[in-house]
C-alpha cells in the first residue's frame, strides 16, 4: 500500500532527531506523490519550537491511515513547507493564523476550519517580566519565547507599538521550546521578560503559584486565531473528504488526543463563525 511508504517505523523515528525525521518523511513523500492517490495533511507551526515531529508523524499517521488513504507530514522549516505549497501539492495545510495571513498574500488559500481549545478560537500573546518596571526598560534585555524568530519579532513589534518600536533592535531573543519554559526562564533570571500566550501564564498559576505571583504583564498583543486548516483555493472540493476526517477528530478520544499534541481539542468550520470573525479569515 502506498501509505506504508510514508510511515517512519516507530523504532526508527524514536532514534531520529526531529529534523532528520522530517527529511526522511519528505523523501518518502516525493516517492509516494509520484505513485498515486494518498492525500496528505501538511503541518508547520512557527508559534511553537517543540521538536516533536517524529511523535506527530507517528501519531497522526496511525490515526489518519485508519480513516482512509491519508497521511501526515510535519515540517520544521518554513521554506520547505512553503515550497511544497507553491508546487500545488494536493492536501490540507495546518498552519498558524499568523502564517496564513502572510502566505495568503502570495498563495491563495481557503481557510476552512479553525482550531478550538476549551471553547476558545483565539489566543492573545503577552509580555511578562519579574524585575522590569515597564516596556521602556527592555533595551538590552533578553526576551524568551517559543516560535520562530520572525514570529517572535512580529509579536514583540506589535506589543511595543510605534512609541517603543526602536527598542526591538536592542532586544535579544532566546528561543525556547515552549511557553512554560519562557515564563520559567524569567523566574530564574535567564531572561528579563517572556512572550507567551495568556493561557500559558494561567497554566503557570496552577503549576507554580509562587513563580506566577512574581510575574507582571508589561504588554498585550491583539487576539489571533489558533491553528487554521486550509486548502488551495482551486482544490476545495477535492479535499472535502480529508477535511471531514480532520473536523471529526475532536469527536473521538483517539482523535482528540492527537489534536491535543497540536494544542487543540477540536475544530470549528469557518462558515459557521460570526460574520465579523469569519471575515478576518476570508480577507485576501
Amino acid at each position, binding site marked *: 500500500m502506498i501509505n506504508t511508504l510514508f510511515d517512519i517505523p516507530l523504532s526508527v523515528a524514536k532514534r531520529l532527531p526531529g529534523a532528520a525525521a522530517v527529511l526522511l518523511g519528505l523523501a518518502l513523500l516525493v516517492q509516494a506523490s509520484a505513485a498515486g492517490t494518498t492525500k496528505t495533511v501538511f503541518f508547520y507551526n512557527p508559534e511553537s519550537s517543540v*521538536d*516533536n515531529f517524529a511523535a506527530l508523524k507517528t501519531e497522526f499517521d496511525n490515526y489518519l491511515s485508519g480513516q482512509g488513504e491519508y497521511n501526515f507530514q510535519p515540517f520544521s522549516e518554513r521554506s520547505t513547507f512553503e515550497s511544497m505549497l507553491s508546487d500545488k501539492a494536493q492536501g490540507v495545510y495546518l498552519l498558524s493564523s499568523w502564517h496564513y495571513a502572510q502566505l495568503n498574500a502570495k498563495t491563495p488559500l481557503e481557510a476552512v476550519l479553525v482550531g478550538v481549545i476549551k471553547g476558545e478560537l483565539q489566543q492573545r500573546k503577552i509580555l511578562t517580566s519579574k524585575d522590569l518596571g515597564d516596556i521602556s526598560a527592555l533595551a*538590552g534585555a533578553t526576551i*524568551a519565547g517559543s516560535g520562530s524568530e520572525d514570529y517572535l519579532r512580529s509579536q514583540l513589534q506589535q506589543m511595543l507599538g510605534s512609541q517603543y518600536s526602536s527598542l526591538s533592535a536592542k532586544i535579544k531573543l532566546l528561543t525556547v*521550546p515552549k511557553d512554560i519554559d519562557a515564563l520559567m526562564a524569567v523566574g530564574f533570571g535567564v531572561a528579563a521578560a517572556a512572550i507567551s500566550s495568556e493561557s500559558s501564564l494561567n497554566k503557570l498559576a496552577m503549576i*507554580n503559584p509562587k513563580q506566577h505571583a512574581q510575574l507582571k504583564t508589561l504588554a498585550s498583543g491583539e487576539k489571533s486565531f489558533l491553528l487554521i486548516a486550509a486548502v488551495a483555493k482551486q482544490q476545495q472540493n477535492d479535499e472535502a473528504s480529508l477535511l471531514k476526517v480532520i473536523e471529526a477528530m475532536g469527536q473521538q478520544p483517539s482523535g482528540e488526543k492527537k489534536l*491535543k499534541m497540536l494544542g487543540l481539542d477540536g475544530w470549528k468550520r469557518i462558515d459557521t463563525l460570526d460574520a465579523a470573525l469569519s471575515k478576518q479569515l476570508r480577507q485576501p
Partner: protein
Amino acid sequence: MPNFILKLPTILCLLLSGLCLPLITVASADAQAKILIVNSDDSVEKYRQVKDAFKLQMTSHAGRIIDVDLQQTEQSDALEQLIKDESPDLIYSIGSKAYQLATQYGGGKPVLFSSVINWQRFERHGNSYGVANELSLSQELSLLRYVLPGLKKVGVLYNPSFNMERIAEARKQMRDMELTLVEQTVTENAQLDKLLDALLPTVDVLWLIADPGVLADKAAVEKVFASSSRYKKPVYTYSDAYTKYGASLVVSADTPTMGRQAANLAQSILLREPIKEVIQTPAGSHITLNVCQLGKLNTNYNSDALDAINQLLECH
C-alpha cells in the same frame, strides 16, 4: 543645507572623541570576533546539536569560527599551539574534557562552556562563563506537577553525602507547589530493597534523581525499577536512558536551547555587556512521556500538556 549641519556629528564626535571611539569599537567587536569551538567529541549527538545551534546563531555575529574536535586532535599540545597561533577572542568549550583543556591553555581568553556535567566540580576563573547541564529544581518539579498533576506524594531516595542541599531545597519548593516530599536516605546500597519496600507503598510517584549513592550500578537501577513496577508506582526521572527500564516521565534540558543560550552569552561577552548570570540554568526543557507505562500503572496524565511533549512512547 548649511555646511555645519552636515558636519555636526563629526564635530561632536571629535569633541567627544574619548566617548565616540570606544562606542564604535564595541559595536563592531562581535562582528569581527574570532571564536574557537572546542568540542570534546563531535560524534556525540548532544554535543553536535549544541554546537550546531550555537553556530547557527553566531555565524552572523562572528568574523570567523574555528571548530576543533578533540577526538581528532591527538595531542593536547596541538590545542595549546592553536590557541597561541589563532588568539581567539572567545573559546566555547563543549563537554568536560574541552572545558578543562580550554581553561588550562586559554590564557586570559574568555572561556564559555556547556554540556559539562556537574560544572561545580571544576575550578572556575573570573573569565569563565557557561550554561549548566541540569535544569533548575523549580522547572523540574513544575513540569512534574504539569504533566502528572494527580500525583501529590513524591518519594525520593538519596544519599545525604551527595544530595542533602538539593533535597532541602526541593522540600521547600514542593511545599509552594502543594506537593509532599517523602524522603528515604540511603547510606548503604545493600539496604536498597528494604528501603524501597518502606518508601514505595507510601507515595504516588518515585522521583529518581542523579545520586551515585543510590544508582551505584546497573543492578541498583534494575532494583529500583523492578520495585516500582511491583508497587505500580510511576518513576519520574532526568534521563531518557531510563525509559528502557520503564520510566514514565523524563524531563531533561533541551540541547539546542543550551547552544542558543551559549550564543547569547558569547555576544554579551564580546560586546562587553554586563552579564547578570555568568553561569546560566538551561532554559529549555525536553519531555518524554511513556504513555504505555502509565497505562500499565493505571495512572492518568494531563492531556492538555501533550503539546509540550517531545517524545511520546506508546505500546507496540
